């Protein structure tokens, strides 16, 4: 039954994607992107990926839309009509799609338990997680311990992207601001959204902290928590104006969070080496290897959460500050 829902939702996904590409008003395209993200999250949930769905929810509902909108405000939001080259492109991508569809018949079917993916290391992870870490969420266990190197790399990619955005947008714009207009930014004159928003922000941050520290027992972890808390602060920026949000959480703190989070993750690995283990082998951190694993995972998840939250907020502020100047 649930597969039929998935069929329905996937068809909607395709329709939405085509509409996004066809929309001439980029603003409309961004609005449709948020529907796309919602559909994607439901599909992930139906396909048993609760953690991934939570990530998509945390990132797609707030942060992506806001960053796109900030960029649109800076670049203009109408697409010029196309002149040529569309037919050729259409033919090429149709052929590509047909080739991929033809090749999918060699893939294992959806849900096939004998598929090669399920034979290699995954059963080992599922079997050993209770023994090594003694907590239920296998995804968190793999993310932070079994494949800790990967995650370290991803955190540094987020860090590098954040630094890149700050470098690109940090330079002073070529044409100086024509008039320094104090924009009535924020939904300050709308009483109801402001009251409700203020009521919601603590709950969003609280829920972020819950996903951060409950990540070992349910869906959640540093990535989701960072995105959720960033969304809470972005909501504050929308309600009170961006400058006010920057006063609450200054840029120094944000940069400190990005750098500190990434360093915290790396230094846990170094401490593991100093205590006689391998890099990111948390078992040596405490007398009992299971406790050591749990301690290490707790610390590096906190590092991931800090880094992601700081990076997303720095990116948001970089775009928003650009808008204020130009």
């Amino acid at each position: 039954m649930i597969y039929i829902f998935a069929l329905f939702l996937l068809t909607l996904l395709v329709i939405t994607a085509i509409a996004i590409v066809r929309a001439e008003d980029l603003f409309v395209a961004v609005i449709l992107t948020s529907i796309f993200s919602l559909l994607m999250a439901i599909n992930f949930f139906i396909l048993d990926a609760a953690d991934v769905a939570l990530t998509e929810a945390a990132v797609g509902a707030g942060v992506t839309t806001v960053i796109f909108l900030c960029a649109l405000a800076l670049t203009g939001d109408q697409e010029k009509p196309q002149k040529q080259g569309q037919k050729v492109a259409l033919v090429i991508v149709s052929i590509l799609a047909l080739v991929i569809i033809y090749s999918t018949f060699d893939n294992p079917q959806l849900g096939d338990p004998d598929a090669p993916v399920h034979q290699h290391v995954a059963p080992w992870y599922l079997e050993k997680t209770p023994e090594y870490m003694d907590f239920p969420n296998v995804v968190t266990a793999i993310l932070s311990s079994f494949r800790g190197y990967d995650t370290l790399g991803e955190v540094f990619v987020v860090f590098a992207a954040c630094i890149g955005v700050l470098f690109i947008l940090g330079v002073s714009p070529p044409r100086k601001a024509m008039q320094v207009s104090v924009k009535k930014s924020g939904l300050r004159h709308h009483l109801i959204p402001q009251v409700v928003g203020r009521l919601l922000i603590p709950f969003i941050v609280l829920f972020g902290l819950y996903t951060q520290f409950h990540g070992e027992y349910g869906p959640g972890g540093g990535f989701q928590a960072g995105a959720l808390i960033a969304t809470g602060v972005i909501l504050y920026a929308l309600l009170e104006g961006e400058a006010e949000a920057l006063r609450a959480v200054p840029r120094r703190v944000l940069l400190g969070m990005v750098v500190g989070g990434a360093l915290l993750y790396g230094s846990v690995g170094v401490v593991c080496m100093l205590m006689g283990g391998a890099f990111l082998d948390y078992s040596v951190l405490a007398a009992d290897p299971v406790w050591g694993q749990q301690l290490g995972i707790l610390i590096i998840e906190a590092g991931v959460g800090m880094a992601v939250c700081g990076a997303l907020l720095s990116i948001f502020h970089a775009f928003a500050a650009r808008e204020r100047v130009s």
Partner: protein
Amino acid sequence: MIDLALDILSWILLTSGGVFVLIGGIGGLRLPNFYTRIHAASLTDTMATLLIFIGIILQAGFTLASLKLFAIMLFLLLTGPTATYALANAALLSGLKPDTGTAKDKTKENAPE
């Protein structure tokens, strides 16, 4: 006996919630202009949220899940009307007239502020 009564009650709530959801969807699609559509969508949203969540809570019994469901219901009841209010207010301020039938994407931009 109590269980059966609770079951029947929650089924009634869930079904009527589903009916409200459908009515809202159809209204949101079929009504002629923006303000009538927002009317249809927001009112049924709130009602359906209440009915469906109370229905599920009755099924779930007194557990952590029902606490979470209650929280979700509370937040939806807070945010749904707020978003609708902000939307209608923004539309009105941008000069979308409640009585002129339909308007296109472009026209309201040169409407009076």
